[in-house]
């Protein structure tokens, strides 16, 4: 019988592949790697590229990933795929934006908060009016 290794490929937004395979090829950062069953434990980052899962001698399934992480245990291969191509500087830029938006929200305090409180007060007033109305109608 041919030895197999259990392979899971998942992305944060969905499960992509789960099952047994004879071998897995992945675009690791230091060059393409082929993982056979009973490989030593390993963790590496993946570059954007193609992951091939050799399900049987004749059939292999290709998946495109935009980067991610590969974890190898002797009987288990896990690929955590990214959903989009990511780079640290892009994340940093997004972080700065998030910060700027917070400052904006804080600066804009008066306007926004007044709006929110006004809305709350309005809702309360409507409720009171409605109760009064009902009481009056019932009494009269």
């Amino acid at each position, binding site marked *: 019988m041919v030895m197999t290794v259990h392979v899971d490929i998942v992305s944060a*937004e969905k499960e992509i592949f789960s099952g047994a395979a004879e071998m897995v090829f992945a675009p690791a*950062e230091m060059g393409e790697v082929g993982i056979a069953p009973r490989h030593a*434990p390993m963790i590496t980052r993946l570059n954007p590229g193609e992951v091939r899962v050799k399900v049987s001698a004749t059939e292999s399934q290709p998946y495109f990933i935009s980067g991610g992480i590969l974890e190898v245990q002797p009987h288990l291969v896990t690929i*955590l795929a*990214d959903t989009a191509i990511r780079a640290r500087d*892009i994340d940093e*830029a997004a972080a700065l934006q998030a910060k700027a938006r*917070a400052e904006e*929200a804080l600066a804009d*305090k008066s306007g926004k908060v007044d709006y929110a409180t006004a809305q709350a007060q309005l809702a309360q007033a409507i409720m009171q009016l409605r109760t009064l109305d009902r009481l009056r109608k019932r009494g009269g």
Partner: protein
Amino acid sequence: MAVGKEIRTKIASIKNTQKITRAMEMVAASKMRKTKDRMQATRPYSKQIGRIIKHLAHANPEYKHSYLIKRDVKRIGMIIISSDRGLCGGLNSNLFRRTLSQLAEWDKAGIEVEVSTIGTKATVFFSTLKKVQLVGQISKLGDTPHLHDIAGIIRLMLDEYEQGKIDELHVVSNEFVNTMTQRPTIEKLLPVVTEEIEEKLGGHWDYIYEPDAKEVLDHLLTRYIESKVYQGLVENNACEQAARMIAMKSASDNAGNLIGELQLIYNKARQAAITQEISEIVGGAAAV
């Protein structure tokens, strides 16, 4: 007949409102199904990455990452996830109340807090609080948020952690128990706590890291935090739709009750008017 004109307009206006709430209920119900599917779709990833983190706790790395090391807590960072829109019952206010009680506890212990918010409601609420500092926010992510949408805000908090500005990172969001129940939860993300050890991976061993331990662990732990926050976000989305569905259902029911009551009042008034008219006519005839 002029009787009860106000009542009739009132009934008409409540009927209109009822139509709106009923439509919102149905929209929320169909959206809830989709958001629930999305919530389930994220489970495999967080399960797998959780397992890797657990394995990692067993390994004996020569390098200790700062995300795994406990520090004395002087200042805590929080990522608070809320909905963008209201009309979803007590979902957000329950979450904020839970957060405030936690904040009060920390305040007593002399711990400072800074927050980043996801969602308009949390942003408005926490920008008014004096005790906490709002450092980042993102809102209007819609019903299909993507992981890279929230990458910025997570990077921001991780940077704060790495620079030692915060000593712990927590995420606050609603947990989807079932359609009727949503539970506000506060979960500690950093330092990463690896719980009970399930699998046996005996012996002294370590991973082969490529290119090196620091970079790989950095990447892995960042993804781990991201997946946790992302899961909180999609779960909170499902909660929002469920809560809105329930709130709109009870609003429609209440509108129905109100209409019934008003109809009764209207009918009584109408009957009283007719009786009065008849007795006036009879009285008039008798007088003649």
